[in-house]
């Protein structure tokens, strides 16, 4: 088989690394005998390969392999996307779980706040309702009822301490 100059120059690196089949290797060898330009290129490749073989092998920095093995890092682009999507799903799932827990806990928290609030205003709320009901009894003094309900109103609106809290 006869090779033209262009094709032979493309196979020089593979010929040097002994990667060609027998027929291609014989054809490149015959071309090198007839082509001084390809011979010179072949000699330059031999020198370069020799120089590369003399370079020291560099050790990777500490933590490099751990970083490479960790999800989503130092991956080929095609492999990173599923990892990234999986990671985002995990993050959303975590957020959803946290939100569900918060929503589930809200009645408990609100219930506790309501209970604390109710314990503060409960006496005034009930005294007000009692005073209101006393309005149906004959001879109950209206000015006194107004005073009592008025004081309780301020507690219910959060503008006064509970009635029994003072001086006791």
């Amino acid at each position, binding site marked *: 088989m006869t090779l033209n100059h262009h094709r032979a120059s493309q196979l020089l690196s593979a010929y040097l690394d002994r990667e060609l089949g027998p027929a291609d290797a014989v054809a490149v060898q015959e071309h090198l005998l007839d082509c001084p330009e390809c011979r010179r290129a072949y000699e330059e490749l031999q020198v370069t390969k020799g120089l590369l073989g003399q370079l020291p092998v560099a050790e990777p920095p500490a933590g490099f392999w751990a970083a490479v093995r960790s999800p989503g890092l130092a991956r080929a682009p095609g492999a990173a996307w599923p990892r990234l999507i999986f990671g985002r799903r995990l993050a959303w799932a975590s957020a959803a779980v946290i939100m569900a827990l918060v929503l589930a806990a809200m009645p408990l928290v609100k219930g506790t706040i309501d209970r604390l609030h109710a314990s503060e205003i*409960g006496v005034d709320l009930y005294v007000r309702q009692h005073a209101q009901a006393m309005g149906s009894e004959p001879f109950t003094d209206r000015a006194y009822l107004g005073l009592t309900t008025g*004081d309780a109103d301020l507690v219910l609106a959060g503008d006064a301490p509970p009635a029994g809290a003072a001086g006791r």
Partner: protein
Amino acid sequence: MNGALLVRVLVVAGAVVLATAGTNVAAPLMQLPVPPDRVLQLALDAPRLIDYEGTKIITVLRNGHAETVTAAEFHKRPNMTRLEYLSPEDVSGRLIVDDGATAWHYEPRLNLAFEGPSLNESLLRGDLSLLHRNYHVTGLGIEEVIGRQACVILLEPNGPGVSRELWIDQATGTVLRTEERDPSRGVVLTTYFSRISFSLNLPAAYFKFRLPAGARVFQIPSPSEESASPEALGRQAGFTVLVPPILPEGYTFNGGAMSRFGSLTSVDLGYTDGENLLSLFEAPAGSIGAPAFGQDVRVAGRPARFVDLGYFRVLIWEERGLHLTAVGTMPTDTLMAIAAQLVSDQEQALAHSVSTQVAVDPEMVSRLRRQGLTFPEIARAVVLSQRLAVDVPTAVQFLQGTLSTAQLAQSLGMTPDALQGTVRDALNQASSVGPHLPAH
């Protein structure tokens, strides 16, 4: 402030009242020109017949100490009130305008208005039947109050409770002065007019509230308007309502209501003796905690909290998953005894005892209990129905004051006096079979 100190302060205040009112306590009182019952009826009818405006002085325990509060009080017949509080400083400027349907409370320092139900409910439909049944009414004579002749009437409860003295203007029926006395602590509330003038017609516009510019409105939660039985209230509220088994002599079920404040749902059972009221508020135990103030006490060995507000007293405890709050004017021991009866839970034993003693079907006892009646009240109703040969519901209506003596006497073809005599005998018989509130 403890009770003894309060009593001392109020006694001094009472002395000042007497001095300012121009009463000569040493002088013998003139006899009343009419029976005391007639004077009381005159006082009950007066707000429907006259207008007045005056300055009222109230002395009561407030914010932990005895305090004197001054207010300008305006009344327009039949059921409108305007109250302008003048002193002390923390209430100065407070305005309450009640048009008979709605009561507005305005606080100028906060520019805040509160809208709630009227306080004048009794002025149109007042009735003295229960009061006459449960109080001993005595006419003490005539005294002069702020230059006016006043009939002095003493109301003493047959059972434990606050007694009340009323100075009723002989000419108009207006109550010029009141004094309430607790058996254990003496005088707990005094009110009197230091000045009053009567008018034929105060302007109606004075009794219409106008919301000031920029004022915020706070809606006061009002209990359900229609009274309901504990059984019906329990269905609405979602918990079993406890009915007090025994109350002091004469207290009768006055009605029940449900109210909501935020997430707090409460049921209120009211019991009256015709002059004073006991309210029992019930809410799920988890929905409300005990207040941080008050005194720790024990009710039938269980922890409870007692809050003494001077005139009103409050007892708080928990029972069968419910937070219970009793509010009333009755003595502390009586309040504790009422709570102890609920804690002891002798429902079945009391039901059996009453049905046996007054010879009535146990199912009738259970039905009346579900309607809110106490065991003594059931005994009274059954005995009265047997004596008068009327059905039990009619006897209950009569005892609760929704059926008057005149109406029942007419339907039975009896004179009111004869009916009253039969009723007295029946109630004495019922009282002898009990059950009674034990001394705490």
